[in-house]
Structures are given as structure tokens and as C-alpha cells.
């Protein structure tokens, strides 16, 4: 954790199709090492083993929501691990609410697979360039 270049991304979404699209886009264009899971619980379980540089998590999942996952990740042992929300929610107030939780950024679904890796890189650089 804390490396300068972004290498490892851990991704959670309950929708297998979108998970596949995002994984392929991040691997092929971004050259990242990506690990995927279909629930927030699995994501938390895998954190210490996979040691991601960045986490992308879907907001609306049946058991554990994105913000609940984020709440857990905020704990000191994960040391400022950046979290990006993936969400289909598009009401302005809700979107503002998501930003206010303190996540690194929010990416809306549908997203463009071609530019997803660039956007994630941009978010990463924005944080590390401060």
C-alpha cells in the first residue's frame, strides 16, 4: 500500500456483467492488476490478502452497500486507501451526498469502458499529486 504508481485495484459490484466490463477495461487499457468480487463482505475479506492500491465499489448492493463498505475501509488499519464509488444513482442530491462521505470520487454507470482506466488514473494522480 502507498506505492506511487497505481497497480492493484479491487472491485466489487453485485452485477457480474458490469464487473466483467470494468475488469477487462481496467486490465486491457490501464494494465492494472484487478481482482473482482460480487459483494461488499467479500471485498473486505480480500483486502489484507490482495493489498489493493485503490478500491472501486458499487453503491447499491443487496447486503452491504458501498457506503457501508467505505465506512469499514476508513478504519485506521487501511491507511487512507482510496475508494471510488460506482453508481447508477443520478439524482443530484444523492450524488452530492455520496461525494460528502469523503470518497475519492464517484463514477456513474453507464460508463465508457474506453476511458475508464484513464479516469481511474486521473483520480489516483489527483490524490497523490497533492
Amino acid at each position, binding site marked *: 500500500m502507498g506505492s506511487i504508481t497505481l497497480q492493484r485495484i479491487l472491485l466489487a459490484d*453485485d*452485477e457480474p*456483467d*458490469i464487473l*466483467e*466490463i*470494468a475488469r*477487462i*477495461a481496467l486490465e*486491457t*487499457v490501464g*494494465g492494472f492488476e484487478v481482482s473482482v468480487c460480487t459483494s461488499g463482505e467479500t471485498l473486505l475479506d480480500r483486502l489484507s490478502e490482495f493489498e489493493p492500491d485503490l478500491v472501486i465499489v458499487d453503491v*447499491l448492493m*443487496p447486503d452491504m452497500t458501498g457506503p457501508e463498505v467505505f465506512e469499514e475501509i476508513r478504519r485506521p488499519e487501511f491507511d487512507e486507501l482510496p475508494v471510488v464509488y460506482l453508481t*447508477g444513482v*443520478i*439524482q*443530484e442530491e444523492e450524488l452530492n451526498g455520496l461525494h460528502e462521505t469523503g470518497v475519492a470520487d464517484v463514477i*456513474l*454507470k*453507464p*460508463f*465508457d*469502458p*474506453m476511458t475508464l482506466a484513464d479516469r481511474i488514473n486521473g483520480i489516483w494522480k489527483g490524490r497523490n499529486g497533492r
Partner: protein
Amino acid sequence: MEGERERRASAEQLEKELERLRANFLEKLPARLQALVEEWHSLQGDGWSQDGARALHRSVHGLIGTAGSLGFAKMAKTARRLERRLVALLEGAQPPNRNVFAEVIEWFERMGEDSISDGDTTFDPSSFENMAEWGTTLFEPRNLIVVVEQEDPFARELALRLGHFGFELQMFKKIDEMVVGSVIRRPAAVIMDLSSPDGELIGEEVATKVRDALGEDVPLVFVSNRSDIEARLDAVRAGCSSYFIKPVNYSDVLETLDRLTRSEPEPYRILIVDDEPDTADFHATSLEAAGIETVTVTDPLDVMSQLVEFQPDVILMDVYMPGCTGLEMAMVIRQEEAFVGVPIVFLSRETDRMKQIAALGEGGDDFFTKPVPPDHLVPAVSARAQRGRTLRLFMEKDGLTGLFRHSRIIEQLEAAVRRADRQHGRLAVAMLDIDGFKEVNDEHGHLVGDQVLKALAYLLRQRLRMSDVLGRFGGDEYVVVMPDTDGRAALQKMDDIRRNFAAIDHEAVHGSFTVTLSCGVGEFPAALTSHELIAAADEALYRAKRGGRNQVLLAGDPD
């Protein structure tokens, strides 16, 4: 340089992968949608549960992201609209009625169609701008008309004319091209040319082929060059709904299609007035199981307000209630002109025949001893509701256009205002007036003028939603009440209709001509009462006329 080449290579690689994912997605989609439709079916009636609906909502929500990210923008938008619908249902306290169920299934079907018709799958971010507002646009499933016609000029003319009225057309040159699966969705009618060079009678053969491909109950409209009785008999035996001889009169074709595509009748509405909640519940449950909508009032003093708002087809009323008896209530109801025709059925534990007859004298239509078993209640109430509706139709609808008459549209508007007020909802009212209608009558005669009036009525019916209420205010003035719609959206919709109407060719003895219309829109809550709404729309209409006609203006907006 190296980096650039690498980038391009990886982009190509990703495009290849996406192509594979798209193919995969499309292959699995029909089964996936089918499963969702089945899930939705299982929620119908007694199966309704918020949890079930929420699970379905999540699946649809997921589809938006996947379809959109793969570049199926059209399908993603349709899924988004369906999502809005489901969210609204989840927020409501009542399980959805049959119409809503059918509507949701239609959305699923559209999603399947959209996935196929989305040719360009390049991701275009502008497709997803203002996504929050998608759900509020006025959704209109266009009526599909399938045309089988070998003769090109006629087919083109038909497509052009019907297109102006908002029909969607799918054309085939030969009947054999129209096989299972080739028609994009269930058509509202099939127009078929029966003319054959050697004058053969092919009606039955053709009808069988259509039914094999599209199902038993698709309405058939035949066009032929033969006017003899033999040919007409052949067509009737083949089960056609209408028969036109070439050259066809297009306004007759339109009238037929308008009739064939009128929306399905709404479920019957029954108001139950009974101070015993258990009995009321029992009757309501029996009726609702048969697809009839009910509202129960346990305090007779609430009856009048429910009458206005719920507009029941039949009132089921207990004779003995505290505060006021059923007989007294019936007399009060009958004093209101608007409710003179609503059938009232009395319920009582009474078996005394004389007392029952006395009740009928007070304006009741029948007398049942309660509790009424469902197999008696449902047919008895349905028959009365049906008769009541037919009678009302004659009283309420304008004979020429089939739209509501003046007094009735005002009542409907008042009910809509009350609903909007209570639900803090939106509501728009549009007033339309044909430009220079007097000149049309003077120049072409009243018969042609009537055609123009009818054309506007067909257009409004095709382009507006089932929940919109359409009326003819008299002369060449029309009123549209649009619930859940703000002024801007209504303005846009009416401007669409204005453009469509201006493009219609009206036939007259000396060639064809076009006419335009002007329209004013008022909105709630800027105008708060039915009176204010009409006045606001009227004022905007006046400005539209004065400002040069052929335009739509919103009340309060500058010219």
C-alpha cells in the same frame, strides 16, 4: 510514439473484448428478460410484495449500467424509464392494478426490441446527459401498423399519411416475407392488399398466413381493387375488420385504425359504502380478485368527496348505517346532476321484500342480501358497471370526435386538480384551437371541416397517454388535461403535436390542403383551480393567436 502505438493496440484489444461481451449479453438477454417478466407475473394480484418488487427493481437497475456501458444506449434509456416506474410503484402503498402490470411488461418487451435496434454501439456520453429526467418524459408506445403492399407509391403514401398521426409502420412487399419473428412487436393492425393480377380470391389464404405469423387476434384491414360482393364475402369470411377499395379514402382508413387502436377499457371502479369494515373488506376482496378496482368508505359523510374523485361505475351501499341511512344517501347522490346515472346497489341483512322494494323507489337499482357471495357479486356488479358506462358514453362523449364533452371535461379536470393538490403533484392543461377553421368550412364545406376536426382527435389520441384526458370544448376548440406533467413537458408535447398536425394533408374536392393549430398551456400550481387553469391556458392561447398563430405558448411566458 511507442506509447501512442501501445495505446492504440490496447484500445483495439478492448474493442474486441467488448464486441465479445456485447454478443454474449445479447445472446443471454431474451432469457434474462423472460425471467424478469416471469418474476413480475408472480408479483401480480395476491403475489404482490414490496420485497419482490425491490428485487426486480435491482435487476432492472443493473441492466441500465450493463447495457449502457456496452453501448446499448437506447435500451439503457428504456430500462431507466422502467426503473422510474418501479420506484414509483415501490413508493405507493397500493399494489399496482392490471393496467400497470401490462405496462411494465410492455417496457420489458421494448427493452428487448431496443437491444436489437441499437446499431451503433460506440459509447457516446451525450446519450446519458440529463439521465435523471428520462423517466419524466412522456412515454408513448406507438401503435405499430404492419403493411403488406406490393405497389410502391401506395405504400409510400400510406406510410407518409399514417406517420403524421404517430403510427409506426413496418412494411413488407409480400405476405411470405412476414414470417414469425420478422415483425418487431405485436401490431395494432395489419393492412393487406388483396389485389391479385388474375383476380383470384386469396383472403382466407392470406388471413391464415398472418395469423400463423402474428397470432389469432390481430385485426386485419384489407385493401383490394375488387368491389364485387363475392370479393367482399371472401374478405368477411377471412375475418377482416375492414375492407377498402382502391383508390382508398385515407380518412376512412384512419378512422378504422383509430377505432382499432383505442386503448383497452379501464377496470371497473366500485365504491363500497358500509360501516362494517369486515363486510366491506369481504366485498372489496371478492371484487378485486376479479380485477375490479374498489374504494371503501365507512363513514357515509365521506361519500360525496369520493364520488368526485374516484368516479365509480357502481355504488355498493349498506342500507343501515349510523348517522344517515343508505336510502337518504341515495337521495342526496341523485340530487347531484353528475351522479344521476351511477347505478346504486343496496346491501342489507334485510330479507323483507317490501323494504327492499321501498329502497328501489329511492333511486337504488338493485338490492342484495349481504354478505353477497363472490360468484354472485362479481357478475351482478360488472353487468351494471358495463351498462352504466355505455349510457355515460352517449351522455359524455362528443359524437363527431369521440372526445369528452365540455361539462364532462371540466369535471375530469376538477378531479385531476384535487389529486394534484393532495399529492403535491403536477398537472398541465392545454387548450388548442384550429387556425382559420371558419375559412376551411367556408371554402371546402362542413363535411371537409368535420374531417379536419376528426383528424385532430385521432392525432391527439395517438400521441397522448392513456392517463391524459381529451375533450372537445365546442367548435374547433380542444382541451387536454395532462396529470403528472409540468408546463414545460406539456409545451414540448403539444408543440410536437402542432408540427404533426401542420404536416397532415386534408383531402378536399379540389386537391388537398393543410391547416395549423395554436395552443396555450396552463400549469398547476401556478394556476390553482380548474377555473384558473382554463383561464391561464386560454390566455396563452389568445397570445399564441395574436402572435401569428401556429405556435404553442405557456401561460406566464413572454410571447
